């Protein structure tokens, strides 16, 4: 579990590789990667909460949406500078995370997942009804100020954000706090029986997840320049986040990153082959089969494959 120099070297190689990428690939690919970066941030946020503690969130778009809407409204309607609207959006998302947390005091499992789903649907309906002059109602807001222009700049921005989030979450989850959060997912009673205040631990997990979700959501809206309720508070968006985390490998940091890139590129590479509606059918089908085959994700498959190669080598050696 400890941090070894190999880990840090792997991070360094990964970051250098990605930073050099714009020299080698097309703008189109960069745009795809930008989406993968944002998806990775959302998936990491989901995983910190649900992958670790086992409290499955079906309402993550709720947290992301609060971040995105707060920043969009503050900057577009009230003329706040982005440097101020994003931190405020993160705070708002964390307040939203506290709302999420209240039911987790009493319920878990399927019931908890359902409340979070209800939160998301509630938000979807409220955004359209309450003060549509501010939220933009069903049509949302367009013309939100963007931070930077062009694929290359946005690539650097989104990648740096993703790498920062991933690296700090990795450090956090390597700490004893990360161990304790994973332990909650395995057996909450035993964590309590070890003398730890599980309420405090869960609150920490919810706050961290909401922080990351709010941050990602706010930057995302300033990248897209627009926001609409159906695009955010939507089961398909939720599906993409959860599947990215699970297909990559829950309870790791690299897993959600792999998952996000895998899903985004799968959809992109299917485009020339299957231009029509088949694409989403095949895409979902692949996700389902992969999940059924190994619920622990691609990372686990790779790890087991590596283990087998090692074992075969050891067998051949002796």
């Amino acid at each position, binding site marked *: 579990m400890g941090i070894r120099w190999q880990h840090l070297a792997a991070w360094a190689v990964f970051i250098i590789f990605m930073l050099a990428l714009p020299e080698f690939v097309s703008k189109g690919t960069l745009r795809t990667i930008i989406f993968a970066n944002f998806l990775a941030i959302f998936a990491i946020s989901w995983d910190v909460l649900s992958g670790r503690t086992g409290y499955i969130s079906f309402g993550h778009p709720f947290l992301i949406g609060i971040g995105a809407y707060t920043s969009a409204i503050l900057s577009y309607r009230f003329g706040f500078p982005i440097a101020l609207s994003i931190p405020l959006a993160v705070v708002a998302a964390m307040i939203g995370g506290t709302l999420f947390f209240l039911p987790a005091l009493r319920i878990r499992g399927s019931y908890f997942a359902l409340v979070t789903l209800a939160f998301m649907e509630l938000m979807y309906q409220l955004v359209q009804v309450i003060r549509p002059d501010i939220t933009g109602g069903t049509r949302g807001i367009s013309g939100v100020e963007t931070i930077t222009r062009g694929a290359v700049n946005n690539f650097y921005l989104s990648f740096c954000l993703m790498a920062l989030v991933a690296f700090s979450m990795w450090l956090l989850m390597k700490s004893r706090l990360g161990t*304790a959060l994973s332990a909650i997912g395995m*057996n909450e009673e035993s964590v309590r029986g070890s003398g730890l205040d599980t309420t405090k631990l869960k609150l920490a997990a919810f706050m961290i997840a909401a922080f990351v979700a709010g941050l990602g959501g706010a930057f995302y809206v300033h990248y897209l320049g627009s926001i609409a309720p159906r695009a955010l508070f939507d089961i398909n968006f939720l599906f993409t986040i959860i599947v990215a985390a699970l297909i990559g490998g829950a309870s790791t940091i690299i897993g959600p990153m792999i998952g996000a890139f895998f899903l985004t590129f799968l959809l992109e590479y299917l485009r020339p082959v299957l231009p029509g509606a088949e694409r989403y059918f095949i895409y979902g089908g692949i996700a389902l089969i992969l999940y059924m085959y190994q619920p622990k994700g691609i990372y686990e498959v790779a790890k087991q494959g590596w283990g087998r190669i090692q074992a075969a080598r050891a067998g051949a050696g002796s």
Partner: protein
Amino acid sequence: MSYPLELRDVVKRFGGLTATDNMSFRVEDGESLGLIGPNGAGKTTIFSLIMGEHRQTSGSILCNGEDISALPTYARIGRGVCRTYQVPRPFADMDVMENIRLGLMPNNLWQMLVRGPNHDREIELALSVGFAEGDLKRHPAELSMGDLRKLELARTLATGPSIMLLDEVFAGLTAGEISQIAELINQKRKEGMTLIIVSHDLKSLEPLIDRAIAMNYGAIVAEGDFAHVMADPDVRAAYLGGE
């Protein structure tokens, strides 16, 4: 005069069922108390009440003279009370050392973040309950029932208790494992640990305790030294299921 642990008129009802009926007893410092009785007598409920996993309907529980009745479980563990379970509850995806790590963690988020795990202490605890060096990286699925009980003992000992509540520590063990665990309990007694032990295995329990309390239907039937309690006609009736 305060005791490490004292129950005063504790009543616990689950709906219409009275699981604990006006229980009062106390444990002396460094004493080892055996809690016996047929299935459903309410022994495990007593442990849950002491740990705060359930709240008593009325009455109070005192630890070193302080009323801990309203405290959450982690605060009671912080005051040196801990328990093991009839069915061990390890963390399935963690190895032996990581399981023990949970017990060693301070209940303080900042400390958990900035300080790394104390591997030496983890190893020391694992070895002290009888694990071999080679077992340290094993996962619960690879361990025997005896090892799982040892693991749970190590994790609870890691919280630094002065009173341990042991629930059916001998259940499902081989004769060899029983003597190993008994040895361990005896050692803790010598070190001055206060103990309450629940067991159906009276033969193994007898040498480990100073005093026994027999329960039936949530109430105390007899109390005193082991031979005296076992000679009590009500206790015999309860065990034989007499009318």
